[in-house]
């Protein structure tokens, strides 16, 4: 492994030079001839009956090419539970409900046309608090389910219930227990490139769909189903990605605007683009939902955890997307963070008339980790044990099988905690209560795929062209994390070429092999594994060609030399050095005998072999191409929510030092250390980029970010009122990479896309407690909450 030429190096992102010169084509720059611009009219109420819609004036506006409402398109249901339609006909259940859409020759005209659409509503009683919505007499957000069967409650029929061991018994036997209630807020993913797509049908009604999705085959499948349901059978769909301006969970599901765009394209017979304004991005894009947790944990007199009991209530909003499935990942920290034998967990997702929710980086983990890790701090204090020590004695170990059935392979959690303790000067700074404090939290996350669909696989095809460029075709995507660079390094290593030879083609269903999606921190691990395997096949093919052609080439060259110079003495060559592929190697484009790497006659530049292989002229030419579809040996969660759903798990810890101003309530972060188990860093600079970026979002989660909903309406839909951190916040963050190569990872690598976000907010909350002795259990930790808590404490 130490012989690696490209893996482990800070290879620069040269393939992305277009991003620094302004040439990269994002959705905004993806243009088609005759393209129209689509705009959407949203509801003016959180819950209302639509009495009438009049589109006449809008249709007559010059430049408008189509105006559609729910009455102009088939009444087909979409979404995870099929609980909504594309354009709403009778009822609106949230402010972002799509009521009509316009296609026009410019976005400005489309916008103008929206104002001319007259909609008459009859407002209905709405419900915004999930606790209220759970009550038996609460007004129903949905009267029926997708199949028209009557619903009696706002509680979603999702079985998020987990039990392991005997929690009741363990509670009675515990020496110490702690109970907490914590809340996490609505969060907007805030991709800098807003949502958008371009839909275009050809003359045969086949669809070209340019989408920012990070699950291109999933999107294709959903669109295919939709087209089928609206009566377009047997149509071919090609989904392609432009350069994507961030994803963070927003591109996992197919959004309603995408179906609307398709309908407008169908209606106008023209390519149509929809592109969200920033305000729309805040008001009409599903955010991470708010969650309320009740958590109780216990330990014995030695501090060993005995049980953990968690109940969560999630505000689903008015419809169902992936937000409702986040409990499957909340399970990770709840069941498996630290050794805890008895666990129970129940999550209830509730319909309300709030904006519907979806995924965000970390899925359910940051929410649940906030509950688990702040409660760990509380329990440690109750038991009189140092909070770092408490984590250390309960830490996970390699070889553990957790109550959820997760099989822990490598687990350097101990090193992560130790690194954090040292760098944050834990022993010196903890427990002073002088307005400064340190806090810590740990994490576990999937890092070796995540079997959330039937397949957790990725296909990679590698073809080597005659001159030696290596084309890698895959159904993966890049939303900015740098996966093309990482895969290029892996392919270069496995094939024997150089990273700069590798040309990555992602994000096209027509070219790439099937991929479960670039999500769940799975890409480097799963696509990387496929790439190693395909790369090795390619190398084998080349070495086979080499066995065939190097002797011929050498003999030919010797003969020529002899011809030119009759005095030339032909050397005695030992051709057994190269008579089988096993005796050869290929590295950095050079083929050589393993037994004599610098052999003056046999060492051959790979390009010569490739050309020879193609230009035999005997009808037996050979092109070098290989493909591998790799589906990791992971399990789907069973009915009890158990199963080893990833091949390996990433651990980590964050430590934070804060200073809290008792006068203003302001929390200042003096230092943030984020230590992560990455298996092996394929590209340390890129790994750090993931850790820094995620940690920063974690700080926002902890201190500043919150989508404010007032009676279902987003009232802070801009960067002035929705506070994300800027460079001025200058938080000194240190990323620590812990390498403990995982046997199943490509060159030992684990996934690192999401982990950095997970432990940050609880570490901040724990540090705030250490500084001033109050626990803020409601994110974000704003100055107002700090002041209120201080006031309450001082009575």
């Amino acid at each position, binding site marked *: 492994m130490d012989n690696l030429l490209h893996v482990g190096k800070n290879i*620069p992102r040269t393939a992305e030079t277009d991003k*620094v010169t302004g040439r990269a084509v994002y959705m905004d720059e993806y243009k088609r001839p005759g393209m129209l611009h689509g705009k959407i009219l949203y509801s003016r109420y959180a819950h209302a009956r639509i009495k009438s819609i009049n589109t006449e004036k809008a249709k007559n506006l010059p430049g408008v090419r189509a105006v559609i409402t729910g009455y102009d398109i088939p009444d087909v249901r979409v979404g995870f539970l099929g609980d909504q339609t594309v354009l709403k006909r009778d009822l609106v259940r949230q402010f972002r409900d799509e009521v009509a859409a316009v296609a026009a020759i410019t976005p400005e005209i489309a916008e103008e046309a929206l104002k001319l659409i007259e909609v008459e509503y009859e407002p209905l009683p709405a419900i915004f608090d999930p606790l209220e919505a759970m009550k038996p007499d609460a007004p129903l957000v949905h009267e029926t389910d997708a199949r028209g069967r009557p619903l009696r409650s706002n509680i979603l029929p999702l079985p998020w219930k987990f039990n392991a061991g005997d929690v009741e018994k363990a509670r009675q036997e515990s020496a110490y227990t702690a109970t907490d209630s914590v809340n996490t807020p609505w969060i907007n993913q805030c991709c*800098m*490139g807003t949502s958008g797509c371009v839909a275009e049908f050809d003359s045969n009604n086949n669809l070209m769909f340019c989408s920012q999705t990070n699950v291109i085959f999933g999107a294709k499948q959903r669109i295919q189903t939709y087209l089928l349901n609206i009566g377009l059978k047997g149509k071919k769909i090609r989904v392609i990605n432009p350069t994507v301006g961030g994803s963070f969970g927003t591109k996992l599901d197919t959004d309603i605007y995408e179906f609307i765009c398709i309908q407008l394209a169908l209606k106008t017979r023209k390519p149509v683009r929809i592109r969200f304004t920033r305000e729309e991005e805040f008001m009409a894009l599903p955010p991470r939902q708010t969650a309320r947790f009740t958590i109780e944990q216990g330990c014995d007199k030695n501090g060993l955890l005995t049980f953990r009991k968690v109940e969560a209530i999630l505000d689903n909003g008015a419809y169902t997307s992936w937000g409702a499935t986040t409990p499957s990942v909340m399970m990770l920290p709840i069941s498996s963070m630290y050794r805890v034998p008895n666990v129970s967990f129940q999550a209830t997702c509730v319909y309300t008339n709030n904006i519907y929710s979806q995924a965000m980086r970390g899925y359910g983990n940051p929410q649940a980790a906030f509950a688990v890790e702040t409660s760990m701090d509380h329990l440690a204090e109750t038991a009189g044990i140092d909070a770092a020590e408490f984590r250390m004695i309960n830490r996970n170990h390699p070889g553990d099988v957790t109550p959820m059935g997760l099989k822990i392979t490598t687990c350097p959690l101990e090193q992560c905690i130790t690194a954090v303790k040292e760098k944050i000067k834990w022993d010196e700074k903890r427990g002073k209560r002088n307005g400064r404090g340190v806090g810590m939290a740990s994490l576990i996350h999937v890092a070796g795929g995540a079997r959330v669909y039937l397949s957790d696989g990725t296909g990679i095809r590698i073809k080597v062209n005659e001159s030696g460029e290596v084309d890698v075709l895959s159904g993966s995507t890049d939303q900015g994390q740098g996966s093309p660079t990482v895969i290029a390094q892996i392919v270069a290593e496995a094939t024997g070429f150089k990273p700069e030879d590798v040309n990555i083609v992602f994000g096209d269903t027509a070219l790439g092999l099937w991929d479960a999606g670039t999500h769940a921190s799975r890409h480097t691990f799963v696509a990387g594994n496929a790439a190693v395997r395909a790369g090795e096949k390619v190398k084998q093919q080349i070495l086979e060609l080499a066995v065939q052609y190097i002797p011929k080439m050498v003999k030919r060259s010797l003969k020529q030399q002899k011809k030119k110079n009759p005095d030339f003495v032909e050397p005695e060559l030992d051709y057994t050095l190269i008579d089988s592929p096993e005796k050869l190697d290929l590295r950095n484009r050079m083929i050589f005998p393993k037994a004599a790497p610098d052999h003056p006659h046999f060492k051959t530049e790979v390009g010569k072999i490739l050309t020879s292989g193609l230009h035999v002229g005997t009808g037996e030419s050979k092109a070098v191409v290989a493909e591998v579809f790799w589906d990791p040996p992971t399990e789907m969660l069973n009915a009890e929510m158990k199963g080893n759903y990833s091949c390996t798990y990433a651990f980590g810890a964050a430590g934070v030092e804060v200073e809290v101003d008792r006068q203003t309530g302001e929390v200042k972060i003096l230092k943030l250390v984020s230590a992560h188990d990455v298996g092996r860093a394929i590209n340390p600079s890129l790994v750090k980029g993931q850790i820094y*970026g995620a940690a920063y979002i974690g700080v926002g989660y902890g201190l500043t970010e919150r989508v404010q909903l007032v009676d279902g309406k987003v009232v802070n839909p801009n960067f002035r009122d929705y506070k994300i951190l800027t*460079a001025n916040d200058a938080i000194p963050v240190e990323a620590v990479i812990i390498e403990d190569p995982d046997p199943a990872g490509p060159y030992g690598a684990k996934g690192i896309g999401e982990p950095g976000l997970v432990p940050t907010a609880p570490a901040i909350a724990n540090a705030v407690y250490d500084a001033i002795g109050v626990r803020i259990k409601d994110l974000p930790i704003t100055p107002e909450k700090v002041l209120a808590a201080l006031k309450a404490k001082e009575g």
Partner: protein
Amino acid sequence: MKKEITFTLNNEKVVVEVDPGWTLLYLLREVFELTGTKEGCGVGECGACTVIVDGDAVSSCLYPVLEAEGKNVITIEGVAASDGTLHPLQQAFIDNNGVQCGYCTSGMIMSAKALLEKKAVPTEEDIRTSIAGNICRCTGYVQIVESVQQAAERMKK
């Protein structure tokens, strides 16, 4: 009522008819097709649309197009040398992972360039202040600051 304006765009004199209601961003993107300048919010809160006007970094989404009359405007497309050689800032962003999704990158580079033209040896605080109006969701700014620092170093030599 259209009006004609004359200004210097990426070192070239241009004469163009504009609608007085346009922003400079609109003119750059829609008329000149200089689409490296991004719109992240359209209301002056994100910095994705930053360009340099007479040496100062400005949000082109707020900049009234008529005010460009007689000015010297540089966009991301005018940063590299005419033979395509990258500016040290561009190279440093590539080398130091200062770019992830890249949506904020044009604006970041323009803000940093305006800074380095005024102050060749900036402190970390100078750098952070210069890009404080440029929001980045991907990087946590760490490697962006490092990129600017390295570019400044390289430009000194």
